[in-house]
């Protein structure tokens, strides 16, 4: 008797592990990472109201109850999964924006490049801030960021990091809506493009304003 999952020597697709991993990747990008990024940029924005306001907000965030568990389950684990699986996704693509220079294809490539850049940026950012605080070498306050951003190269690096993050989130949100079958029609996808463009612009303004407040 022939196996029932084979037709003329061709095996039906099965094993949905990859499917579940992709869906998890898509979900984690928005919840919690997208929400965390939004919250992070908004808290940073206190810097525009002066040293005192920023320090107070940073102090509040750093002293939330169960903060280490919040960090592990809302930030570190989801972010690491999204980053490492994302790298695998990015490196299995064969980008072709030259001959097929359509808007969505260019955004597809940009999503992968910003993703790779963000792995580097976030690793450095965490090392420079949270890790230094953890080993007791620094304190998370206005001065710390002022010192970092007084270097023009670091400032440019942070501007690029913020813009990459807001772009990656906004464009990722667009494909999240497609991946979960929310925006099916061409019209829905077009309006979703306008909406996510707005998300990109608003978050970028919030993020960049905060950076400029430190210099």
């Amino acid at each position, binding site marked *: 008797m022939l196996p029932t999952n084979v*037709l*003329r020597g*061709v*095996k*039906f*697709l*099965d*094993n*949905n*592990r*990859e*499917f579940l991993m*992709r*869906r998890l990747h898509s979900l984690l990008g928005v919840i919690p990472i997208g929400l965390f990024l939004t919250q992070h940029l908004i808290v940073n924005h206190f810097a525009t109201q002066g040293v005192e306001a920023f320090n107070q907000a940073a102090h509040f965030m750093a002293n939330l109850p169960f903060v280490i568990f919040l960090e592990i389950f809302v930030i570190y684990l989801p972010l690491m999964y999204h980053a490492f699986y994302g790298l695998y*996704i990015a*490196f*299995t*693509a*064969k*980008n*072709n924006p*030259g*001959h*097929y220079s*359509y808007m*969505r*294809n260019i955004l*597809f*490539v940009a999503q992968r490049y910003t993703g790779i850049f963000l792995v580097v940026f976030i690793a450095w950012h965490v090392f420079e801030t949270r890790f230094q605080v953890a080993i007791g070498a620094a304190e998370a306050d206005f001065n710390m960021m002022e010192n970092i951003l007084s270097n023009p190269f670091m400032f440019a690096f942070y501007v690029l990091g913020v813009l990459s993050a807001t772009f990656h989130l906004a464009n990722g949100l*667009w*494909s999240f809506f*497609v*991946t*979960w*079958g*929310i*925006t*099916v*029609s*061409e019209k829905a*996808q077009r309006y979703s493009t306008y909406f996510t463009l707005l998300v990109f612009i608003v978050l970028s303004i919030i993020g960049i304003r905060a950076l400029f407040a430190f210099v």
Partner: protein
Amino acid sequence: MGEAAKTVIFEIERQNSTDESSYWEKFELPYRANMNVISALMEIRRNPVNIEGKKTTPVNWDMNCLEEVCGACSMVINGKARQSCTALVDQLEQPIRLQPMRTFPVVRDLIVDRSRMFDSLKKVKAWVPIDGTHDLGEGPRMPERKRQWAYELSKCMTCGVCLEACPNVNEKSDFIGAAPLSQVRLMNAHPTGAMNRDERLNAIMGEGGLADCGNSQNCVESCPKGIPLTTSIAALNRDVSIQMFRNFFGSDHMVD
């Protein structure tokens, strides 16, 4: 007409067999009004002499219907995958560069082996099973308006252009590409085909299935038949989202 000596220059990426390396060869042909890439290739076959005046082997290519219905003559023309029968020389920038669709194994010159697409249709059960041990009678009626809608999806000719244009279909990935996925939507829309809907949805949740789509949307931009491939993918994403929960939590609506 004054320009008696007007010519057309072709640069063709050739390859003698699947395992051999490729090389470029140039050809210069006399221009004729309304010529297309196929008629130019026929001219090269008639007189296989390259631009240096050396006699060479005729260039091999695949073709059948010559009216963009069969999909056999697909190749990469000036960087973009399309059918050579509808590629008019007057509308192409010269020199016209012809390449095989390297997403598929090259058989010789411009001929590729698209078997993987037909295998993919089997992998996702893109057919309507109608066999029984006795006469099953007529199936349920399909509403006319739905038939008209489904007809658009049935125009797929398995030409391979959507796979060639897709950045996620390559040697590093198992992704089956847009064409077979859209056929799952077509078969699921069929009233008899819908009786095996869950089987197809579970198949495209498998390795190399739907989840490998990265939404570059090159497929829908490149499809010569104008099939709404990305709408199909998004619609299947919705179906699969629901199927995923049904599989886990259980449902009395696995088949309906």
